[in-house]
């Protein structure tokens, strides 16, 4: 694996574009201002931060858009479950404002449930979710919907609905009693369509679109909600690698340019490590590690959470940690592998 020498475009907080040779100054692509974090992930073994103790120091004090961003969303000793079966028992999570948080973990570890609980889609059996210093259970749903947007897993569009109309439904929490659309609403919808690159599909029925296009339309709907915080439950599922990157780039530019706090559940560890400022690793309803991806994603953590042997090497493109899993086969060292 040879690091590619050519420079890549990296967007900074202020929306300007600078050329930085990737791999030589790793860290620029993730959280600016946290450059002191260990960058060679492979060497940073055993530095698992203590779980569930609130935000890691490095990210909370991160400069830039984070200071300007709106209130933070955090869960305090929340208990979540289904039909009497407790999935999460007393968990704390702080979504750093103005940052991108990715939650990863094995199937059924409770990561989606946690996100749903934080968006008040799933009732809390205990604990509380705070927006700034307000308990969200004391807010009206519409008030919450103006502050926190959420894209659940697998949304189904009603028959025959067109792209612009679906995106316009994101305006719901901002509209008055009779749901009249105003010219402002049109402008927001147009902005969301443009931002997600689906403007030319505005008049197409949603069910005619490809999976990648459809997902962008749903994200446009959440953008039209104009919230400071956006939660997404596995937004890249069913997308090919190109569309996954497109989508994560889109969310990153949203974060960089508008200061939107983004939190998402992701399956793809390496993309999560590359795109997240703050990485949360969950297993069996607990947070086993969180913080800067460079510190968090170690082979010990991967083993603990996923029961999987892996090597963690620097991502040749972004310098963030990259998990190279070991299966039962094809595990020979390169040196000994027959040519």
């Amino acid at each position, binding site marked *: 694996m040879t690091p590619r020498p050519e420079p890549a475009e990296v967007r900074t907080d202020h929306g300007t574009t600078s050329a930085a040779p990737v791999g030589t100054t790793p860290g620029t692509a993730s959280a600016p201002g946290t450059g002191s974090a260990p960058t060679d992930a492979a060497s940073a073994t055993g530095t698992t931060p203590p779980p569930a103790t609130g935000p890691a120091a490095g990210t909370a004090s991160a400069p830039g858009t984070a200071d300007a961003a709106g209130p933070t969303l955090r869960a305090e000793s929340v208990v979540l479950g289904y*039909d009497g079966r407790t999935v999460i028992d007393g968990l704390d999570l702080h979504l750093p404002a103005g940052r991108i948080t990715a939650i990863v973990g094995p199937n059924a570890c409770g990561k989606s449930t946690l996100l749903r609980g934080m968006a008040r889609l799933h009732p809390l059996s205990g604990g509380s979710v705070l927006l700034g210093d307000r308990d969200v259970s004391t807010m009206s749903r519409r008030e919450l919907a103006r502050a926190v947007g959420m894209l659940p897993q697998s949304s189904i569009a009603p028959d025959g609905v067109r792209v612009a109309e679906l995106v316009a439904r994101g305006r719901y929490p901002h509209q008055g009693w009779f749901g009249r659309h105003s010219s402002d609403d049109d402008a927001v919808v147009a902005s969301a369509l443009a931002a997600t690159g689906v403007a030319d599909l505005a008049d197409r029925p949603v069910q005619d679109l490809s999976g990648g296009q459809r997902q962008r339309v749903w994200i446009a709907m959440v953008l039209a909600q104009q919230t400071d915080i956006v939660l997404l439950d596995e937004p890249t599922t069913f997308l090919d690698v190109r569309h996954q990157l497109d989508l994560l780039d889109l969310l990153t530019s949203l974060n960089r340019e508008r200061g939107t706090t983004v939190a998402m559940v992701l399956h793809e560890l390496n993309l999560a490590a590359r795109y997240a400022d703050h990485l949360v690793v969950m297993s069996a309803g607990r947070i086993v590690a969180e913080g800067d991806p460079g510190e968090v994603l170690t082979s010990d953590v991967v*083993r603990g959470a996923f*029961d*999987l042997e892996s090597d963690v090497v620097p991502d040749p493109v972004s310098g963030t940690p990259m998990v190279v899993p070991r299966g*039962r086969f094809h595990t020979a060292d390169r040196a000994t592998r027959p040519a």
Partner: protein
Amino acid sequence: MLTSPTAAPAGEVTRTPDRARRRTLVLLGLVAALGATALASLALGVRDIHPAVVWDALTGWAAGAPLPGDQDHRVVVEQRLPRTAVGIAAGAALALAGTLVQGVTRNPIADPGLLGLNAGASLAIVLSSVVFGVASPLGFIWFAFAGAAAAALLVFSIGAGRPVRLALVGATVTALLTPLITITLIQSSTAFNLYRFWAVGSLAGVRSAALADLWPFIILGAVLAAAMAHRMNMLALGDDVATALGQRVGTTRVLSGVAIVMLSGTATALVGPIALIGLAVPHAARRLVGTDYRWITAVAVVLGPVVLLVADVIGRVALPHSELEAGVVAAAIGAPVLIAVARGRSVAGV
């Protein structure tokens, strides 16, 4: 940390016999229940007959002995035996048809009635009475059968290929036929009187002659339904998966349609439009043995007759001097079952 690849499947394997045993027990229990209800159906009624006498009557009849003068023997052999036979045949047919309809449409509220079959049969009967002057239940059985088949053909030809749409088309065809029925009923009091007694749904009256004519349809339909069960399992995963697994989905739909018409057309012709057995029995079966259509079919074919016979027996003994028709009792039994199923946790698992 290389876990043995056989560890997880081994766990699966050890659990399976439990489930199989449970299913077998359920089925055996239901067969026993069917035996008991059949006996009750032969023994109970306006005149209660001792089981020993019932047994004597049956063995005598089976041996071909001429009927003795004994009144009880006559009641058992001439009235209750045909009635029980019709109940078993119709119950099994309705339950099988319901299972097939729900499998094909993947819609939990689908039943032969919703697909317009009952409306088709009803219209045919009403018209046969007005146009051809048919006045006896025996006479309009073939009309009922043809009406159900015609309605099914219309529904399947418009709605085929789109499972959800099939139910909508069925409801619309019912919407089209029901007014035609009512308009005829308003015109003709003879038809109205004929219809209102048929429409309740009853096992009373001598329908054994009809059963003698129509049993091949039930056998054929049941065989076809049994053959479809395996295909339903794949169809439940969606058309694409079923196709990918090598199934000709269109063929499955057509064959199922044929079986549905045979089964529910015959049952409707025999006992009238008895609702809720076709709807509730498959749901109850799913609750008892899980999602495997082979087991659902096996359970439904036993559970259907049990429910219909129990309804009939209750109807016979509920009122002191008259009978409550089986259709009413079946609805009163079936509705709570359906509601209980609907309140269950995994109601969408169709």
